[in-house]
């Protein structure tokens, strides 16, 4: 596909690897925010190839991983109801709640369906007026415009049997929380490209300034990631700390304003608990009061819940970047993709799953250079 496959060209990638290795005079610590970027890095062995020049710490950019245990448990409660047709993106199906997951609810008779787009969920609601269709609205700012439109259209078309269970999170507060942490070692960031396609990059300018860290808006293909890292390393070597855009083909400084606008007409900032990290103030999106009719938590009377994480799961430290997955004592033993303790082992974007699925052999094989 055009504007995609060219950015997988091994020759271009090799050039960028060489450039990074030549430019770096010391080993820099960078964080890629987005799970899709983690996926590419580990899948292509980029961290292996860049090891002398860069240490990549994987950030909490996996909305699946950071959806709080409470929200998962609420989803499971709803999905188990006989009057509910529960719809979700595929990512959420195997994320463990306190007792089980959505796939198990489906096996026990719950009507749980994977959809590609929130508009598909709305279409199901229109087609099944006898059922309550609930959509699990998770994601970062990238997905918020789609979820917002589903709610907006539901109101416009008067679809009374549609509601959403919201678990949206936003990136900048998470970056700030990481930078504020006393254990922080991150010196530069690759910002999430598609989040910025929607939101632009103005929110990152004060962060770069205040914490003196380069932030490079980066895409998702191997050439994009390497170019982003190259730009970040160049800034660090030169002592600069600016917001730079690698992903020029898909990101403008102002983002896509109509999308931003609808997001903030339907949603508002709210405090949000990040699984494994804890409460980050004003880091989530919740439905505005005028759309509360479409809030599944209100419609089905789901109050607040307090749920404890399994003590052994150290997802929080992994998500904050202070622990590498293979340093966790449970990694690969008591915690595997088949029997996960926490979300980063389940989600295909999670750092633990990425390491387990792609990288756990590194001790057994000497990396090629």
């Amino acid at each position: 596909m055009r504007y995609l496959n060219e950015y997988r060209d091994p020759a271009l990638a090799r050039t960028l690897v060489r450039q990074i290795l030549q430019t770096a005079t010391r080993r820099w610590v960078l964080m890629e925010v987005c799970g899709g970027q983690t996926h590419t890095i580990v899948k292509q062995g980029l961290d292996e190839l860049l090891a002398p020049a860069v240490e990549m710490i994987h950030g909490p950019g996996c909305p699946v991983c950071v959806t709080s245990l409470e929200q998962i448990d609420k989803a499971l409660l709803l999905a188990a109801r006989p009057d509910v047709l529960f719809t979700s993106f595929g990512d959420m199906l195997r994320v463990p709640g306190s007792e089980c997951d959505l796939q198990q609810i489906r096996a026990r008779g719950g009507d749980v369906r994977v959809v590609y787009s929130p508009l598909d969920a709305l279409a199901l609601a229109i087609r099944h007026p006898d059922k309550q269709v609930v959509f699990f609205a998770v994601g970062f700012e990238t997905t918020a415009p789609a979820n917002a439109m589903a709610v907006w259209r539901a109101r416009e078309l008067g679809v009374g049997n549609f509601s959403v269970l919201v678990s949206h999170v936003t990136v900048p507060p998470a970056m700030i929380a990481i930078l504020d942490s006393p254990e922080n070692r991150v010196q530069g960031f690759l910002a999430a490209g598609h989040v910025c396609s929607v939101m632009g990059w103005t929110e990152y300018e004060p962060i770069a300034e205040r914490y003196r860290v380069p932030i490079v808006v980066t895409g998702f293909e191997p050439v994009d990631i390497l170019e982003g890292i190259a730009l970040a390393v160049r800034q660090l070597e030169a002592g600069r700390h600016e917001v730079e855009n690698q992903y020029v083909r898909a990101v403008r400084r102002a983002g896509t304003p109509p999308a931003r606008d609808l997001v903030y007409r339907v949603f508002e900032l709210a405090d949000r608990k990040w699984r494994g990290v804890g409460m980050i103030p004003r880091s989530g999106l919740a439905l505005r009061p005028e759309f509360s009719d479409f809030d599944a938590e209100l419609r089905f009377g789901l109050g607040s819940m307090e749920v404890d994480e399994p003590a052994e799961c150290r997802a929080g430290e992994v998500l904050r970047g202070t622990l590498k997955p293979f340093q966790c004592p449970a990694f690969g033993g008591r915690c595997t993709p088949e029997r996960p303790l926490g979300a980063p082992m389940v989600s295909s974007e999670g750092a633990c799953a990425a390491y387990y699925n792609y990288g756990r052999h590194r001790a057994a094989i000497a990396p090629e250079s």
Partner: protein
Amino acid sequence: MAVIVSAGPSCPVPLVATDRIQLGHGSGGKMSAALLRDRFLPHLGNAVLNQLGDAAVLPVHGGDIAMSTDTFVVSPVEFPGGNIGSLAVHGTLNDLAMMGARPLCLTAGFVLEEGLDMALLDRVLASMAAAASAAGAPVVSGDTKVVERGKADQLYINTTGIGVLRPEFRPAPDKARPGDAVLVSGPIGSHGMAIMAAREGIAFEAAIESDAATLFPLVELLRKAVGDSVHVLRDPTRGGLASALNEIAAASQVGVVLDDGALQVPGPVASVCDLLGLDVMYVANEGVLVAFVEASAAQPALAALRRHPLGRSAVIAGTAVAAHPGLVVLRTGLGGTRIVDMLPGDQLPRIC
């Protein structure tokens, strides 16, 4: 509240219009006989089946026979490039072929849901007949049951195949050896993506057709070209190439190293995989085989595959190695390596 009249048991007098399967079709009485006579035999009939005995009588060959069974529950029942019927024939006969056996015949058991559209049944049976005929393996015994509406997803088919083994050609999953070349007979991902693209809720319009086909001709070409230099044969169906290679690596206790650039993926298949976030290595194939071949025989084996339309795009995709036994590793275009692991369950479309 209106009084709800219960539907109750259906009227036992059969309706004249038989455009849908009814419970009576499974009763063993006249309706069953009529279904067999009017629907099944016209498609699948042959000298053995037409006798309608309780069992098929087959001549016994000196030596070993191979026998394989599989049950097909695919949904949607019809998909671009085939349907559950053609799949049921190809799938079982291919399992025989992967053992090195020449397919001899098949049995077919059907579970039909009450309300199944007869025209659909006709299309499925016609496909089965065509597939069996193309493979030279008739259906010699069959059975049909009908279950109530809701107890089956339109129809399920079980096929059991019997094949004849040659003593000198016995590929097996535990026979791979370090140094073997790993050959893949064609482009990967078509079957699974044809099904996925047709699923409700996903609904992509894609020029992707299932690749379901009988693989025995390819196996024969390999056998004639390089004989028992073929150590392992496997058709990477459910779980895709990744799962098949992992099973072989584990059974033979060898490592496998794959070359990322060698694998062929049709454009639209790659596009849908990108759109849904799926890895083509895990997508089912029904017209592709993987062969582990003695290194010295790799080139003649490749040439043999390429002589057949199904093997036109055959490639040498990798090597078996002594290192990291049981692990399959992919070498990327950049020189990095990564594991190609088994998945715990199905691949799911993702947004992340």
